[in-house]
């Protein structure tokens, strides 16, 4: 187990586990909640098949402490750069070619919710609570929440959710397509971990990587380009499979 900035990392079987360890609310110390170079090192093990992100104790994360953020204004580094580093961390997670699951219990606010939204699958407990409270302080989510939230929920629901700053429960979050699974409080970690293992266990990495890349393309390319790439990846895998079946596998 490694720990940096109150974030810990361990690998269990072939799943990497990132835990936010700043209890009770697991506030994020800074927008770049884990240094990007550290995250890149952690996620570069080539046998990893999935990543789970969770919070220590009762909560996922209360996000950033806004007082801290306001204090950073006037620091040497412009705030836009500080936020940019945080966004780069989330982009790295979202663009990984293995699945990332957020296992959410208790509160999942602000930057915490933005981490969850950058994950590919969100599992939450029945007692989970979600909010973008930034608006109450006269600011808005700054780590991509204003982009990733509407991408999941559609604009009308995202506008209401972000503009109101209101807290919603697990059922409402499910209804809004903000989360993908609701499980009982005791089962969030087990369910998320087992789900990831079941998804990836029997699949070779090239297949997992191709699926993740196709999903990334679906987010970022035109339909034509995304489909063209999907066919190319299919063709690559088919070529390897054909050779394998022929018994003339690549050297």
């Amino acid at each position, binding site marked *: 187990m490694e720990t940096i900035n109150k974030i810990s990392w361990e690998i269990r079987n072939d799943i990497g586990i990132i835990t936010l360890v700043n209890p009770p609310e697991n506030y994020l110390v800074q927008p770049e909640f884990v240094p990007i170079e550290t995250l890149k090192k952690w996620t570069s093990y080539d046998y990893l098949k999935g990543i789970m992100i969770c919070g220590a104790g009762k909560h996922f994360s209360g996000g950033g402490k806004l007082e801290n953020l306001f204090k950073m204004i006037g620091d040497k580094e412009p705030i836009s750069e500080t936020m940019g580093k945080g966004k780069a961390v989330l982009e790295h997670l979202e663009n990984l070619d293995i*699945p990332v699951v957020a296992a959410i219990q208790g509160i999942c606010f602000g930057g915490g919710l933005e981490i969850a939204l950058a994950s*590919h*699958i*969100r599992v939450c407990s029945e007692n989970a609570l979600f909010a973008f409270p930034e608006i109450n302080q006269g600011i808005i989510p700054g780590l991509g929440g204003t982009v990733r939230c509407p991408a*999941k929920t559609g604009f009308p629901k995202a506008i209401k959710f972000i503009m109101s700053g209101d807290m919603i429960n697990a059922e409402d979050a499910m209804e809004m*397509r903000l989360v*993908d699974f609701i499980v009982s409080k005791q089962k969030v970690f087990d369910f998320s971990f087992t789900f990831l293992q*079941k*998804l*990836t266990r*029997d*699949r*070779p990495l*090239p*297949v*997992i990587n*191709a*699926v*993740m890349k*196709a*999903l990334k*393309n*679906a*987010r970022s390319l035109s*339909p*034509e380009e*995304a*489909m*063209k790439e*999907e*066919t*190319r*990846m*299919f*063709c*690559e*895998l*088919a*070529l*390897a*499979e*054909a*050779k*394998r*079946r*022929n018994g003339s596998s*690549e050297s």
Partner: protein
Amino acid sequence: MNIPGYSTILLQIDEGIGRLELNTPPSNTMTMKFFTEFSSVLEFISNSQEFKALVITGHGRHYSSGADVPVLLKEILEKTKTDEHGRLTVVPDFLSNNYRSLLMLESFSIPIISAIRGVCLGSALELALFSHFRLCGEDAVFGLPEASFNLVPGLGGIYKLACISGEALALERVLKGSTFTAEDALKYKIIDKIVPKKALMPTAFNFAREVMQDFRVEKRGLYIKKYFS
């Protein structure tokens, strides 16, 4: 009226509504020949003024079990250009034409309705996903099994499923590769309406007759609400 000229597809038109049946019994496997004919059928329909709607279904008990994988692999091995390390350089045209056919189908200005009985697997589900509307019998079985033989869907199925059902569901269905029921498909928004098996074709044609009057793809949600809720 039957429109002759195809061996793997039955094409008819009646009062402006086309009926395209996949016809390679018993499970309507999408053979190489089928994909070639499908592409020319789409050309034919798009050049004709007669078609005001198109219902796609399978001849007999099934929609389709998807591509003929062993033959497809053999063709890919023979026709794919590779570099000196055996790595892919150019995707063969016959493969690219298949995803282009689905894009073309989706871009049609007439409503395309898939009516699904029995199995609808792999590329067949991709075909259904690129239709504007999808109805199924209660016994229909769906799946993208490609990952279970070390492949992935390759005609835009991952892309389209992510658009329709969300990223998490697409990820789960594609990596698991297991089949799912009509009720699940409805829950995932893959299916717009489940109908009793015997009522499937009449429902599809009645629906086609209604929506072809003023079809616009942006109004998809409104039609479904109006006719199926």
